[in-house]
């Protein structure tokens, strides 16, 4: 069998492993949801009463913090007592119960998938006789690989099934698309791509994309958790014209029992911090992609910037993530709203990869399709 074919086979293997991981993460999540929703009902009544009591106590605590002139840290307030309307805030954050069989399977298959994919990528490079980041198929492989590795790193101590579901969901979809739609034979490349920048620029861009993927999943979880902590759900309030629809969806309130597994998840603040750390790394890499791309364009096309669709897409994503970093430090935008910028930024990154490669003509028409 040719090396290229072995590589493809390994990628299929990785896709299978990731699919199993996805199923395992999903079932771990479902189990968590089931277990905690039963508890949720039992505890809820007691909690409301406790929260009321604690709130009264909190006022005193805050008052006592006055003399030193220190503004009371938000989390100190949170720990002492929830602000009004935060029913679930007093919920202690629970660590996951000892790794169950399903999370064990999820973790193992994630590792297995990473291994298979890693070898698959290396063999692909061997078969093509060059660095394997020259067409959409290869971008997809490497991007998924990076996302899976980052997921594994983030979960090294503690499995957060939701992150697994989102990242593996995207990963399986990406590999399937890669194998079925983007696939091209391993081959050498045209002169414009024969440059060490293929390794630096494209490699860094893909790594950034992989990291943004996990950050995105974290931000989604953060917003869910935030909704639960602050007791806000759009399904709690009547909708003007479509209230019937709302009522049928009401059991999916993020504050309701269906989402009570969220208490096994780190607090919104911690998730925000994790998302920020990942996004910060991703953003620095993305900045490098932008600069490296400009340097390469200067070599290959005779201008460092020409508003080519791909350049525009990269620029827009960069500006959105810069806006995210500003939003984090802007009053009234930090936290939940800043996370929305992550959604937009990630959507732009994905669109820049898919739409621009496939449907827009530009100088970056290297998808090989």
């Amino acid at each position, binding site marked *: 069998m040719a090396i290229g074919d072995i590589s493809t086979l390994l990628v299929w293997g990785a896709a299978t492993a990731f699919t199993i991981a996805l199923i395992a993460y999903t079932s771990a999540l479902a189990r968590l949801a089931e277990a905690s929703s039963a508890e949720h009902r039992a505890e809820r009544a007691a909690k409301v009463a406790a929260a009321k009591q604690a709130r009264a106590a909190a006022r005193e605590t805050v008052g006592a*913090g006055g*003399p*030193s*002139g*220190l*503004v*009371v*840290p*938000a*989390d*100190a307030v949170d720990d002492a007592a929830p602000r009004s309307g935060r029913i679930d805030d007093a919920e202690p954050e629970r660590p996951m119960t000892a790794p169950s069989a399903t999370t064990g399977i999820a973790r193992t298959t994630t590792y297995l998938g990473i291994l298979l994919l890693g070898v698959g990528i290396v063999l692909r490079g061997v078969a093509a006789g060059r660095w394997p980041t020259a067409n959409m198929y290869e971008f997809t492989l490497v991007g998924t690989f990076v996302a899976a590795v980052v997921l594994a790193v983030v979960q090294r101590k503690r499995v957060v099934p939701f992150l697994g579901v989102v990242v593996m969901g995207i990963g399986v979809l990406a590999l399937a698309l890669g194998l079925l739609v983007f696939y091209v034979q391993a*081959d*050498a490349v*045209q*002169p*414009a791509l*024969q440059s060490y920048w293929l390794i630096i620029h494209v490699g860094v861009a893909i790594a950034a994309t992989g990291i943004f993927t996990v950050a995105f999943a974290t931000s989604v979880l953060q917003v869910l958790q935030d909704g639960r902590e602050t007791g806000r759900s759009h399904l709690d309030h009547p909708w003007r014209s479509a209230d019937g629809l709302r009522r049928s969806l009401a059991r999916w309130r993020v504050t309701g029992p269906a989402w009570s597994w969220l208490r096994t998840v780190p607090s919104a*603040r911690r998730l*925000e*911090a994790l998302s*920020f*750390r990942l996004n*910060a790394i991703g*953003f*620095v890499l993305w*900045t*490098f992609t932008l*600069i490296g791309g*400009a*340097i390469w364009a*200067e*070599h*290959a*096309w*005779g*201008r*460092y910037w*020409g*508003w*080519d*669709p791909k350049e*525009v897409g990269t*620029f*827009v994503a960069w*500006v*959105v993530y*810069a*806006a995210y970093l*500003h*939003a*984090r*430090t*802007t*009053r*009234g*935008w*930090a*936290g939940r709203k800043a996370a929305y910028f992550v959604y937009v930024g990630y959507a*732009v990154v994905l669109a820049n990869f898919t739409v621009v490669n496939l449907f*827009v003509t530009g100088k970056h028409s290297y998808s090989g399709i």
Partner: protein
Amino acid sequence: MTRDPQTTEPSPRGYTPEGLEDAFSAGQQPPAGGSGTPGSAGGAPQLPSLGVVGWLRWAWRQLTSMRVALLLLMLLAVAAVPGTVFPQRAQDPDKVATYLSDHPDLGPLLDRLGFFGVYSSVWFSAIYLLLFVSLVGCILPRSRTHLRAMRGRPPRAPRRFDRFPAQASAELDGTPEEVAERAAAALGGPRWWRRFRVDVRDEGGGVRSVAAERGYLRETGNLVFHLALVGLLVSVATGQLLHYRGQAIIVEGRAFANTQSDYDTFEAGSGFSASSLEPFSMRLDSFDSSFDPDTLQSRDFTAHVTITEPGSEGVQERIKVNHPLDVAGAKVYLQGNGYAPQVTVRDPEGTVTYSGAVPFLPQDTVYTSQGVIKVPDVTSGPQIGLQGVLLPTAQQVADGIYRSVDPQPTDPLLALAVWTGDLGLDDGIPQNVYQLDETGLTQAVDDDGLPVTLYLRPGETVDLPDGLGTLTFDALPRFVALDLRHDPSLAWVLTFALLAFAGLATSLFVPRRRVWLRLRPGDEGPGSGRTVVTAAALARGDDVGLQAELDRAMDRLRGADVDGPTGRTGR
């Protein structure tokens, strides 16, 4: 961002330890009414009795507020999108023309609104210029504050430590003064590598407090990053002003001189003067190409040229894709290549009326190339236009139908239609050399009324129809399309881009931390020679390494005294 300049003494107010509202720097200016985060726009506008100056100040404060920066950034992102949706004149004027003729109603409106030149449109420029004004207005005051903070003392230890994200305590040998001295040394580190800036204060009653701060580089990085963006913008604009770019097609064996008239297209910024064209000439000696034998995809293009600068010997150089050639402060890029059939046209008397190599433009990966040979200088009779294709490796598909099967010239074939009449060259209207203006021309037909097509292989000569003379296909040299570009700002653009990158990485990855110690005499009183240490630490933003930092500091402080009763708390 608006700052309150009166306050120089940092205070922990508004200094939210850890959390989403990251207000580290705001700690240096106690906010009125609790709006101390960097994002606050300086309070609500006091609408009445502001006066013109008041309004201007208000507007300036708004413009330099974080919220407006955020808005402008998002606007910039949105405004950049139409440029990928609509064709852009700068990249593809033909597509714009097509769009305009396809959309006679919408097109002109979009055109007036600048949608075919988004990146030079008034609205796009307005957004980024406002953003940069905002940036400068934001960064300059911030730089002042930062400078002051770097010169001033680290902020005083807060009265209570119990709310901080990292805490520690210990009981050590020595009086508070002695321990304070040790602490200053332990936190400060060696002289050549200052970790923390340390400030010891006497709080009275034998109590000392130590305030320490590290990571000023984080803020420095942020400022460098933003200022570098301004530098980047200025250098790009300068480059726009001073650059020039020209495209020239050179056929193997011919030369080209670096003068404006020798370029096929030439474009320059408004600050360009013809004297910045360095005099040199370049000859294309040969051109090599290679293709994948199976997929016919291109694998390598190399142009071998000889550069001659005035007063010196010619130098042989190579130009490849991705490897431009530096010549006299300009760069020469290999942008395209193809074949330029060398032909000779003779009139019926045998006099040469045309002789030259005519570039034919490749249309696909097998170099099916189109071109036009114009013969205006006939001695008598009508002008002649020959229009057709060149197939580098021709394969007959059907009678009179050929196609190219390989980009390399293994069996070239030239197939031309013949037009006669007026080429329209004398109208003074610039013509596309690759197209035939058919208005004044009629196509030559054979006896059956069918258009005549001439087929030639290299070395062959055929008769032109209607006794017009003969056509000889002499040879098939290659041509290259070269882009020559000169942009004196390039080094600056690169420098500022790298500065911005370094500043960004620094500001995102260097931790900014504050550590406070309070040293009280031990329980047995001031004379006991024991000191109770309580400590707290705070970081800018979320910082996983904070407790470890504090623990390290405590360990170092404990030094020999490791057996003393210690305690440690932290979250």
